[in-house]
């Protein structure tokens, strides 16, 4: 049976209103909604499609606080078989490398045939965890995957380059694929799936349980502060009722000689 790991991150919901904390350390995230990172949803769907086609176990893992368990339950509801929830106060300020180390420690004895991650997260947008995890597991990786085909221990993928060009590459298994959004159409968890998810195993692990300590995952990248970008010259804003605005836009388009 094929064993597949999908790493996912819980991030602020797309429609959540985001504000910077008064000390600038991060966003104000006490009272906002969270969801599975978009890229990771596509990664999960890609794994679930393999499971649908044959004999495979899909394991989902996340590094995140208590609330991230909800995203694992959602993934189990969508069809994943079991979940690993890694959290420890020592991970609170870690960076991509620390997260990759925690995931690698959880994955190393499992001998996964395939590992899926998203290309990046929609919050910090670093895009480093996947390739780092592959390096720590000593397996090859490829990022920006928009198509996969699995046969005889090989994976043929299409990787997105610039301007719509695609690279076709072949990787031996085990390997890690960091997928791009749009690779598939992500399913929703069914009611039945959500009911079944409650009975599926969800293992919690802290740093000690992974054979790590806070020093091993101490961040090498630190955020000093985040802030709303200073407004440059920016756009000249047009105000008024819809009709008034439309009138002003028409005047501008005429001035451009396009009407």
């Amino acid at each position, binding site marked *: 049976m094929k064993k597949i790991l999908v790493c996912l991150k819980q991030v*602020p919901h797309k429609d959540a209103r*985001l504000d910077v904390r008064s000390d600038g350390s991060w*966003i104000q995230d006490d009272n906002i909604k969270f969801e599975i990172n978009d890229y990771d949803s596509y990664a999960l769907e890609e794994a679930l499609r393999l499971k649908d086609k044959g004999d495979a176990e899909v394991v989902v893992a996340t590094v995140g606080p208590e609330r991230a368990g909800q995203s694992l339950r959602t993934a189990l509801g969508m069809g994943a078989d079991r979940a690993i929830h890694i959290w420890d106060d020592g991970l609170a300020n870690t960076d*991509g*490398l620390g997260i*990759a180390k925690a995931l690698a420690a959880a994955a190393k004895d499992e001998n996964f045939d395939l590992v899926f991650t998203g290309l990046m997260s*929609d*919050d*910090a*947008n*670093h*895009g*480093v965890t996947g*390739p*780092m995890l*592959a*390096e*720590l597991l000593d397996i*090859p990786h*490829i990022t*920006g995957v928009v198509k996969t085909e699995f046969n005889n221990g090989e994976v043929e993928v*299409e*990787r997105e*380059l*610039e*301007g*719509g*060009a695609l*690279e*076709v*590459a*072949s*990787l031996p298994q085990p*390997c890690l694929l960091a997928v791009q*959004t*749009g690779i598939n159409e992500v399913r929703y968890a069914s009611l039945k799936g959500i009911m079944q998810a409650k009975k599926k195993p969800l293992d919690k692990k802290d740093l000690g349980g992974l054979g790590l300590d806070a020093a091993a995952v101490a961040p*090498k*990248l*630190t*955020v*000093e*502060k*985040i*802030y*709303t*970008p200073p407004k440059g010259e*920016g*756009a*000249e*804003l*047009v*105000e008024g009722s819809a*009709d008034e605005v*439309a009138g002003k*836009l*028409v005047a501008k*388009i005429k001035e*451009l000689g*396009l*009407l």
Partner: protein
Amino acid sequence: MSKTLIVGEIQEGVLREATLELVTAARELGGDLVSLLIGNEIQDQAGELAKKGGGKVLVADNAAFESYTADAHAQAILKAAQTESPDLILISNTPNGWDVAPKLAAKLDTGIVTDVFKIEQEGGEPVFIRRLFNGKFNGRFRISGSPRIATVQPGAHAAYEGSDSGSVEALDVSAESRTKVVGVRAAEAGGHDLSKAEIIVSGGRGLAKPENFPEVLQPLVDALGAQMGASRPVVDAGWLPHNYQVGSSGQVVQPKLYVAVGISGAIQHLVGMKNSNYIIAINKDPDAPIFEVADLGVVGDLFEVVPALAKAIGEAKGN
């Protein structure tokens, strides 16, 4: 004295502009500069980089580097890092750059920051500035550990224009890759070519559902005699085909007028349209990054503004 290693990139036989931008970024920081070029039969490009400010250019020139693979390129960069002991490694944030850079950081067990658009010096160490939350915020980052690794956003720095008499040295490195490149497929031509459109009206996630493209956006497209474009989330959701996508992974456009409707302006979209001659943005969020590149902005409900605009254009044409 600090030392920066820049990792250049050759695309279809040509030294990338982004590499000369790294030269600028490295020279702004001061200190020693060493460049690395990886490829097969690339002596000419190495000579070019040396003349264009790349300093000492190390060349990993080997049939094993014919195609980019993370495995092979990481080995070459690692060798250069071991040979030169740089304090900072700069790599362009391109599909190859973002693929290899984190692997290298894990190999070196060091800190990495990606998609940086500005590097400042503060207290003798670099502070890296980049966007996060898809452009909604900026962040200032510091790296501990050595060497520091940063990927730099293409276009954020001007290409270095000075000339110099650098040198070229071979970097002796062999490489093997578990990943094999089968080939590259060029972008699909035709279908929906936006490159020659005078006016483009693009819709984003703000349109809320696929039916709103024909029902709400199309009347404005028709009134302006424009072509329709879209942002990535719209294409990812399958609302419009891929060839409608404007952005770094879609089409890069430069029309006389670009109207962005319900598009927040993630960097990957901005890269594809910011050089349009005139940009009008309609979005309900006053903090949306799209307003930073727009010439004229409307903060409001697109479902009111767009129909009113389509009607007003129709009336203006009738006059």
